[in-house]
């Protein structure tokens, strides 16, 4: 499992992931349809803000915010936890272990392979957002664009690595799907997916600053809609990547330890 092999194999794995996403495009559309929560929250918050703005957000601000939320959720999606759970239980993980490349890279490639298809959904929504709310929908400073890409990558990494951590727990317990459920609940509420985190009570915002969820959705969305000045953005970006490092270390450690316990039942 040398690094060179991995680097050489990764592009092919990405292609495989992409073909798979293409083959199951009907499924992908169902997924996209099941991430319509931002539109519901958009309807709700614009109704609330119709008469006067709430904090820094007026009705248009909310439209821009939640369309961006939809876009970011599309681009940072990962589902490795369910995949790993399923493969551990079915014993098919054994097949992956036979290959001369760590399954973690394979999962990453499969999850990333769906991104091009998701871009095709996300870009029209982003364009629509610009048409509706104007320049509020995209970064207004030049540095916003590269930082948006970096925060999107960070957001995806946090989502993926958290998925791996929780999926790997399936090697220690019967099934970690319940853990994933709890994680998802916290993610929905605390990531800025249902309301901009700055609108919560102060203690909630303070808590959210130190948890990983906000850096999955909230931060990329805020950068996309240009809510922060440069120094503040950089500070938040640093926190995001600290979480990437923490979760990355945790994922690798859990994986190494868990694999020793793996016995391919059935399969």
């Amino acid at each position: 499992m040398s690094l060179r092999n991995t680097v050489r194999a990764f592009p092919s794995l990405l292609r495989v992931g992409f073909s798979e996403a293409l083959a199951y495009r009907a499924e992908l559309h169902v997924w996209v349809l099941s991430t319509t929560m931002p539109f519901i929250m958009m309807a709700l918050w614009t109704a609330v803000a119709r008469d006067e703005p709430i904090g820094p957000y007026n009705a248009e601000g909310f439209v821009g915010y939640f369309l961006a939320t939809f876009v970011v959720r599309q681009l940072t999606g990962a589902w490795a936890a369910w995949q790993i759970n399923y493969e551990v239980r079915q014993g098919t993980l054994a097949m992956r272990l036979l290959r001369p490349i760590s399954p973690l890279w394979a999962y990453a490639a499969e999850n990333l392979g769906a991104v091009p298809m998701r871009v095709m959904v996300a870009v029209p929504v982003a364009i629509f957002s610009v048409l509706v709310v104007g320049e509020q929908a995209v970064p207004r400073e030049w540095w916003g664009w590269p930082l948006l890409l970096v925060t999107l990558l960070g957001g995806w990494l946090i989502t993926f690595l958290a998925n791996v951590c929780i999926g790997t727990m399936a090697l220690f317990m019967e099934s970690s799907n319940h853990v994933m459920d709890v994680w998802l609940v916290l993610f929905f509420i605390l990531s800025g997916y249902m309301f901009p985190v700055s609108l919560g009570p102060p203690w909630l915002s303070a808590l959210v600053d130190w948890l990983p969820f906000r850096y999955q959705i909230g931060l990329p969305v805020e950068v996309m809609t240009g809510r922060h000045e440069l120094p503040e953005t950089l500070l938040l970006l640093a926190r995001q990547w600290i979480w990437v490092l923490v979760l990355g270390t945790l994922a690798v450690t859990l994986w190494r330890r868990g694999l020793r316990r793996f016995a391919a039942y059935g399969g």
Partner: protein
Amino acid sequence: MLRRYSRLLGVQLRASSLLAMQYRGDFLLEGVISLFWTFTAMVPLLVVYGERQAIAGWSFGEALLVVGWFTLLQGVLEGAITPSLNGVVEHIRKGTLDFVLLKPADAQFLVSTTRFEPWRSTNVLTGVAIFVYSFHLLGRGPSIPGLLASVVLLGTSTLLLYSMWILTVSAAFFVVKVDNLTYFFQSIFDAARWPSSVFKGPLAFVFTFLIPLALMTTFPAEAMLGRLPLRALVAAVVGSIVFAFISRRVWLRSIGHYTSAGG
């Protein structure tokens, strides 16, 4: 005919309850998780009402009634509807639906009653507790005719939920990989957490006529408050029967598309 089906239902119920007794440990875990979910899911509501006294004519206590109905119906959904119908999706994928179709009873009846998970219905109790709390906040009791109407609406809402599930499952005959249908359904149902008058324009139309979420949670809450017009009650009953009829037709047509296809 009716006697035969009620006996069948009895048999299926007994099998499910035996199974449920076997997994008692799940009860605690599921209960804790769904309690956790219910209360965390209220955070957005608290944030919204932290900013405003009333939204679209609904005060906090009144909106909480809608949440109560949402929670109660979620209990019904997870305890009585999803477990069986999740099995259908599995059957379709594996091609084992044959065994169900071969049995000398209506396939929709059989697949809808295979599994009940009483442990999962903790949400029904949570929902009732939320009702009590919101009337405490409102400082008055529910109106008695309204309460009766809301019981009728509980029936229509359950019928609507069930029909929506049948429609979703029917999609499984056409889409190959369908593990995510449950998530799809839940994400749509989630909008029922909010009073329907919040939604304006196209969404209001969709949530009243195409996906009748308004009928499921907002109508019963309004009935409890004693402000649901009789006309709306009648419309809800007729509407849900029509919806159930449509879903039955769709199911029958979709099952015609079933090709077994081993594995």
